[in-house]
């Protein structure tokens, strides 16, 4: 990954990616039906971009996110980070890859370990990857807490998740994701459990982190309005196919695919 040129290659490149699940193995090991969660997907995400992936439940948007952070492997197709194939990574290169991509999950009530203090949660990735000394890690954790808007960082250092509100927990999840200075973060519906007033603050935080640290995001959502607010480009995914990729503005103004049109039509609004 040494001689990577962001102008030549996209940061993330998915080519012909298919992911099949075998939901029912059958009672006596008979072959069940295969479910194609993703069907021959091509996707490029450029460095510094916030890329939105919009679709309804079951459309394959979460599967895409999980493949990109290598929580799962594709059935067919190739995924590249900075031009380098990640399909068959193992050992040291895989460990290095893990420090470069991170994920923010949907539900901050379930994604944080209740037994770990905020400090332990955020410093765990640093410990796992053997970065810094205990003192420098402490410094880094406090600094990261302040970056995500939990100020003063020292006040939150020894708290536990149950002492925090939903919005604060999600900020901790963001802090945990950015503490390793990753290149790429997958945010899977990070605001869907939050109230509107809190969600908008979190979206603003993600966009600030992108501007400040040049991180690249995949923002997975079912909310087209949130994608429009946050993302540079948006892909609409439907039944495992990407039906449209464009800037959010263009997608909303001139939707080409009938599914996109439908999605726009059902977005709630309250203008009278």
């Amino acid at each position, binding site marked *: 990954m040494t001689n990577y040129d962001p102008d030549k290659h996209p940061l993330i490149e998915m080519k012909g990616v298919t992911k099949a699940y075998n939901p029912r193995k059958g009672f006596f090991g008979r072959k069940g039906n295969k479910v194609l969660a993703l069907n021959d997907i091509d996707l490029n995400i450029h460095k510094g971009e916030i890329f939105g992936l919009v679709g*309804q*439940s079951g459309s394959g948007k979460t599967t895409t996110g999980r493949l990109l952070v290598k929580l799962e492997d594709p059935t067919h197709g190739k995924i590249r980070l900075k031009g380098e194939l990640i399909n068959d990574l193992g050992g040291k290169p895989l460990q290095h890859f893990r420090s470069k991509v991170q994920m923010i999950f949907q539900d901050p009530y379930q994604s944080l370990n209740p037994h770990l203090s905020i400090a332990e949660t955020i410093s765990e990735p640093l410990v796992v990857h053997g970065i810094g000394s205990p003192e420098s890690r402490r410094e880094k954790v406090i600094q990261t807490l302040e970056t995500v808007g939990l100020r003063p960082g020292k006040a939150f250092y020894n708290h536990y998740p149950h002492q925090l*509100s*939903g919005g604060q927990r999600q900020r901790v999840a963001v802090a945990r994701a950015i503490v390793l200075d990753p290149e790429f973060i997958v945010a899977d519906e990070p605001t869907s459990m939050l*109230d*509107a*007033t*809190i*969600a*908008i*603050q979190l*979206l*603003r935080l993600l966009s600030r982190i992108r501007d400040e640290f040049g991180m690249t995001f995949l923002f997975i959502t*079912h*909310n*087209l*309005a*949130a994608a*429009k*607010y946050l993302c540079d480009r948006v892909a609409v995914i439907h039944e495992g196919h990407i039906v449209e990729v464009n800037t959010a503005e263009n997608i*909303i103004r001139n939707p080409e695919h009938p599914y996109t049109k*439908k*999605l*726009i*039509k*059902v*977005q*709630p*609004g*309250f*203008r*009278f």
Partner: protein
Amino acid sequence: MSLLSVDNLSIGYETKNGMVKAVDGISFSLEKGRPLGFVGESGCGKTTIGMTLMGLLPDNAKILSGSVRFQTQDLVRLTEDQWRSVRGKDIAMIFQAAMNALNPVYRVDDQVREAILAHRPDISDKELNHRIRELFELVEIPYERIHDYPHEYSGGMKQRVIIAMALACQPQVIIADEPTTALDVIVQDQILEELRAIQSKLNTGLIFISHDIAVVASICEDICVMYGGQIVETGTRKEVFSSPRHPYTKTLLGSYLSLDNEEHIIIPDMRESADLTLASGCCRFQANCTACDAACKSDQPTWIDISPTHKALCCDAGIIRNPHD
């Protein structure tokens, strides 16, 4: 006369840090055929209101004051036995989590059958089957699917069964508590459409609870905006959404992302959640209010009328009467 009228209702939860007032002195009335919406963020007391109207408050909850008039009775005073004849029959609820509200080991038609039999034990088999068929038709579930188990249904279909169950005994009041929150936008749109159609067809009273202002706006004629256990603003849909007056309502509407309002987004600075341990009647929004001054800490807010139907709860009439910020 209103179908249901609530007067000065306060509800507290006993916790180890003392009494927490989840609902603080709220009053409203529900008219037939005019859906009433409660909107607010988590912890504002909207579900507690729904549970009170169903007599389903948990053991550590206590009704501190107020009355709920329905027909000739005060629901606050009902015993558990008396509740059993009201709940499900006169007042029914559409619950939030469709995934958990159905019993996984019973067929869906049997679950609806049970709901009818609970209140009409002497109904004939023929009439019962006819009624079940009618209900599933009403919520648009094909007849050949009614013997299925809940796991064979999609999320939207499960929610339809919950609606059918709520309608089983032709209740006069239906309480819908976040009925579409677990569903994605496309299914949400279908369920809302369904609810609208059923509501206008049966002309029941409907109380709709949601954190999503756009969903409430699409269903309800009258809106109550709640914050920290108080109703802070109430009015018709048009009044509240096109001319919000309370600082919290403005924040709530201003932070809502829709496809056409990006330029008008206000990023709120909500640091603290509402303090529910404050004495009754104090303004609970003061810690987050941008228009707040010292007087708000000591004064009790009062209702300030903007029109006969539109009013807001605030210490400062100047803020409320001014339509611009």
